[in-house]
């Protein structure tokens, strides 16, 4: 179900220089753009749904179905345009004072994706006030709380899923929280057992639990287990951009840059993957490192022109790993930390703190390690050096 989409995506415009000069193409048959999704049936399906909705724009079921499909598509391709299309599908209800619950849940999802965590929680609370049994709202709420570092709240939201959601989902929710708040080993074990027991779960669900397990194992300092989990996830879906990013980070942490280059060579369309690709090229001393870095700089610049700040984590990493601008890196890492507090956010903040010797960032990292009780072998060396410096 989590199809095979991105394939055609990559070939169109890998690393083309931005805004060269307007011109008239040399030939009429020249292909200027390949549409994402290519000939995949999913694209046709979306086209069909969109056409149907344009005939009946006030059909709630049709609109929420299309919005949901666009949101899935956006996640798979790492393409935010679909999020805008999803919002457009919900337009008749978007500005209502009391939108229907399905619209509120989707609006919360869209708001979360642009880092409007507060408004997202407001939407979810409105849904849950009406219907405390809405498991999708509880799960989304747990996610937002986890991202923003509210572990107690996230755990409470996960608990509300009991008997309302599949066992594997409930355990993934609880283990995700426990894994970063002082129960890393137990959380991993429990999720691994449930994963093994629930071989009947959908491949999409299994792919993502495998990814989760991979990340948890890496944080526990069990690289062999981590790699096995990630490879298993890749076997379910080798084109998933989130998974590719996570696996690339795992490889980069172990100085396996050449493998990253091979893995991401054709997948640089997504900024997050281009970032890992450029870092790998640089670490390996491979040709094209400067070009990839320049392309990435152009993309960040384009994002900043539209005043997007959702890329601050990636941008901080770019400044630190590729540009060597430690001051910019720590500034961005701190701005990002004010918004989201996942392990990756802590990772870049700690590295930027170490490189820049910024006392404020160092203090934030130290306080967080103490208060959250996060166990993470992947940042342990950075933390050790940060501690030794102080």
């Amino acid at each position: 179900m989590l199809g095979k989409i991105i394939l055609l995506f990559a070939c169109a415009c890998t690393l083309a220089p931005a805004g060269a000069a307007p011109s008239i193409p040399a030939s009429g048959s020249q292909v200027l753009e390949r549409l994402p999704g290519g000939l995949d049936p999913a694209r046709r399906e979306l086209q069909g749904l969109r056409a149907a909705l344009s005939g009946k724009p006030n059909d709630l079921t049709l609109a929420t179905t299309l919005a949901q499909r666009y949101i899935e598509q956006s996640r798979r391709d790492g393409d935010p345009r679909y999020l805008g299309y999803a919002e457009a599908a919900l337009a008749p209800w978007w500005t209502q004072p009391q939108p229907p619950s399905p619209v509120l849940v989707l609006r919360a999802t869209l708001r979360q994706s642009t880092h409007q965590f507060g408004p997202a929680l407001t939407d979810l609370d409105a849904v849950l006030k009406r219907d405390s049994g809405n498991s999708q709202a509880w799960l989304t709420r747990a996610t937002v709380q986890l991202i923003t570092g509210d572990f107690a709240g996230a755990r409470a939201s996960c608990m509300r899923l009991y008997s309302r959601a599949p066992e594997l989902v409930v355990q993934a929710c609880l283990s995700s929280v426990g894994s970063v708040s002082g129960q890393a080993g137990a959380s991993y074990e429990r999720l691994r057992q449930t994963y093994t027991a629930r071989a009947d779960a959908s491949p999409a669900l299994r792919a993502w639990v495998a990814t989760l397990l991979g990340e948890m194992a890496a944080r526990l300092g069990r690289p062999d287990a981590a790699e096995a989990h990630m490879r298993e996830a890749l076997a379910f879906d080798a084109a998933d951009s989130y998974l590719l990013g996570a696996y690339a980070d795992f490889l980069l942490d172990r100085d396996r840059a050449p493998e990253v280059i091979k893995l991401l060579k054709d997948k640089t369309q997504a900024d997050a993957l281009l970032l890992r690709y450029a870092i790998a090229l640089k670490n390996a001393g491979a040709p094209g490192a400067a070009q990839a870095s320049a392309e990435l700089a152009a993309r960040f610049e384009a994002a900043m022109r539209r005043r997007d700040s959702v890329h601050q984590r990636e941008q901080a990493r770019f400044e630190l790993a590729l540009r060597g601008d430690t001051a910019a890196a720590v500034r961005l890492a701190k701005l990002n930390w004010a918004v989201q507090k996942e392990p990756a956010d802590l990772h870049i903040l700690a590295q930027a703190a170490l490189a820049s010797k910024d006392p404020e960032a160092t203090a934030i990292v130290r306080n967080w390690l103490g208060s959250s009780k996060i166990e993470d072998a992947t940042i342990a060396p950075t933390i050790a050096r940060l501690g030794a410096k102080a």
Partner: protein
Amino acid sequence: MMARCLLLLALCWAWIGPAQAHKASDSYLTLAVQNEKIEGQWDIALRDLEMAVGLDANDDAAITWDEVRARHEAIAAYALARLKLAGDGQACSLRVSEHLIDRHTDGAYAVLRLRGACPAPVATLTVDYSLLFDIDPQHKGLLRLTHGTATSSAIFAPDARSQALQVAAPARWRQFVDYVRHGVWHIWIGFDHILFLVSLLLPAVLVRRDGQWQGRETLRACVIDVLKIVTAFTLAHSLTLTLAVLGALSLPSRLVESLIAASVILAALNNLWPLVQRWRALVAFVFGLIHGFGFASVLADLGLAQGALVLSLVGFNVGVELGQLAIVAVFLPLAYAMRRGLFYRRAVMAGGSALIALLAMVWLAERALDLKLMT
């Protein structure tokens, strides 16, 4: 990180898009306003146009140049219907003059070259932008507006569809200030003008009696003399500056520069061997005419602000006068205080004038003969 995964666990329920992405949809609009004329360029992503007007005629998920070309009219009609320009409240016309293709970080873009006209020269340009907002509410229009050398920018979004941008007023004021500054600067670095003025002013605090210089009695008399000279000089150079800038009069610059040097010599020598005493204001006027041509050539080098000839002319002239006033403000109190002493008459007046004459002779030789005597 795992939060992302967590949400996906509920994939069959609904899921969240990751922030790892290329950017959302933008269009890049550039407008250049000059008086009532508008020129511009509008870059719109082919992907967005596919959603809006449909480009992929054979439905093979690949958009070719032929397919885009076939839809040029539809693209232009779609885009122009979603961009309304008004100059000071009056609607401006806009058309697409050329279709091109360019690349941005997130793919290929149709490039629309725009031409337009407003009923009158524009001071405030109101831009109403509604491209793609119905299809993608996260779309943004990024506008860069240039007018003269100034640039301003704006971002259009569903909650910011209409924005008014100042074109003329602040730019004009800035231009004016720029030219004032140029004028002051030119006086400050233009030693020939300063020395000419100083030569004429040196005797202003004195009066010639029985072949001897004596200090004037009252400040009032001194000020009146200074005022007469400065006014005459100002009137004269403003006159020729204006005529030269408007193209009504012109003299070869070498001749002008030489005559300016000569004027300094004559003014300085007149202090040593007075020929003209009561008519120094007239001398200031006559030679002021020549200095005006000198200012004009400086202004020509600077370039006049497009469509703001009077503004740059007046600004430059005001700058010159301000510079002059500053010289007078320093000179007059000092000279008045020292006017009765021998030092002023001998050292400042006689010695200074001799030095000025000497220096100006070197300038004259340099300029008339095209030599380089001093560096």
